[in-house]
């Protein structure tokens, strides 16, 4: 499997070409960002198409791979389908989004209609808040079960991903590029659809705070 890394703008990109379909790529994207986050590579987001998967972040992925700080074989190891999957699902945006559909159907929350938006302070109780509270106090709640079931069926395609991971073992080719490759252009046009919470967000806040510090020292 081919993997390309390149910088663009103020971010670093990694594009993989597994050709396993959007669902499997999406699952792979969630799991990879989880691992990258743990490896302190500060991923910011990912996007999946039917052919490829792009992940971007604040650290130079390519350099981390070539210096073996983050071996590609470890990054794409099959064991990611175990704990990582569970852990990611728990705090994932995809799951929160699925939960929003479930909660809307259950009548917990109302859809926002154009022209009738309420301010954030008002209570269209945010489904995220409900999701977090349910998760910590009632993890077996029927809506959470429904969410997981929906997600496993509609969003994950775990089986196909497992086959792919065992097939590519030891057959990953990494190309560290100076700039975007022609192959990567289509997926780069898809960017901006999925986001990763966590360290990267904190890093952006810290950057904004540093700016103030710099200014005050001038």
């Amino acid at each position: 499997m081919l993997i390309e890394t390149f910088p663009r703008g103020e971010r670093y990109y990694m594009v993989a070409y597994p050709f396993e379909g959007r669902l499997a790529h999406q699952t792979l994207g969630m799991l990879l960002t989880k691992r990258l986050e743990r490896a302190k590579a500060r991923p910011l987001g990912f996007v999946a198409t039917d052919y490829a998967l792009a992940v971007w972040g604040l650290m130079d992925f390519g350099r981390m791979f070539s210096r073996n700080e983050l071996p590609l074989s470890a990054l794409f190891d099959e064991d990611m389908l175990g704990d990582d999957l569970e852990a990611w699902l728990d705090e994932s945006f995809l799951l929160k989004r699925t939960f929003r559909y479930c909660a809307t159907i259950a009548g917990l929350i109302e859809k926002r209609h154009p022209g009738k938006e309420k301010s954030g302070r008002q209570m269209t109780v945010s489904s995220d808040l409900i999701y977090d509270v349910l998760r910590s106090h009632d993890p077996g709640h029927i809506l959470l079960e429904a969410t997981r079931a929906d997600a496993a069926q509609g969003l994950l395609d775990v089986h196909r991903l497992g086959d792919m991971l065992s097939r590519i073992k030891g057959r990953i080719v990494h190309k560290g590029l100076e700039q975007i490759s022609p192959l990567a252009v289509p997926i780069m046009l898809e960017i901006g659809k999925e986001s990763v919470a966590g360290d990267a967000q904190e890093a952006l806040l810290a950057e904004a705070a540093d700016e103030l510090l710099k200014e005050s020292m001038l």
Partner: protein
Amino acid sequence: MNQAAASALDTERNHECILEFAGVQLVADPAGCLYWPQERLLVFSDLHLEKGSSQAIRGRMIPPYDTGATLKMVRDCIFRWQPSSVISLGDSFHDGGGEGRLPDTFRRLLTECMTGRDWVWISGNHDPVLPAALGGIAADVLALGPLTFRHEPLLQSGSGEISGHLHPQARIVRRGKSVRRRCFATDGSRLIMPAFGAYTGGLNIRDKAFGGLFDLSRLHAHVMGRERIYTIDSRQLV
């Protein structure tokens, strides 16, 4: 200050942010409460207890665990700071009947938080009349040294007003990515606290509801990060 509090302060010191405000030093805790060391006073704003059950009465069955989640965070903060007095800065209960619906376990948790310290309930728009059953002192406004505590910020308040009500949030966009978090908003003469309750949303401090309240050239957002406060200049906020 007792031993536990002293060591808690040591381990936590790096994470809090000390604000010079109206001539006193206040500590903004990343959990969303405000501590005034000199008076050993801890302030929470907009707890909105029993918001979940309040919605349920109106037919919207959202999970009722918010009170427990909020009170446990309150307890953790009180344990960390060991204050001699606590102010709940209004909208402590989401509606007038909130106190009556408080389940026994949470009532005990609240009593545990209140025991051994002075407790002041400032009235808010959601809870204009505070229930007598819980104890503590009820007040509309509380003045303490150079500071004035009230729920809803007044346009002509003078310096040293600490309020809540508006649930301030700060939003920044960097590298094409937006981050939005609760924050303490202050321009040095007025401070608006973030909402503490588990089910409370937030309002961007660029919203027109904040219009005229701050001297924008001196406005800073002290943003609640996961483990620390990030102080961000108002020019960076969107």
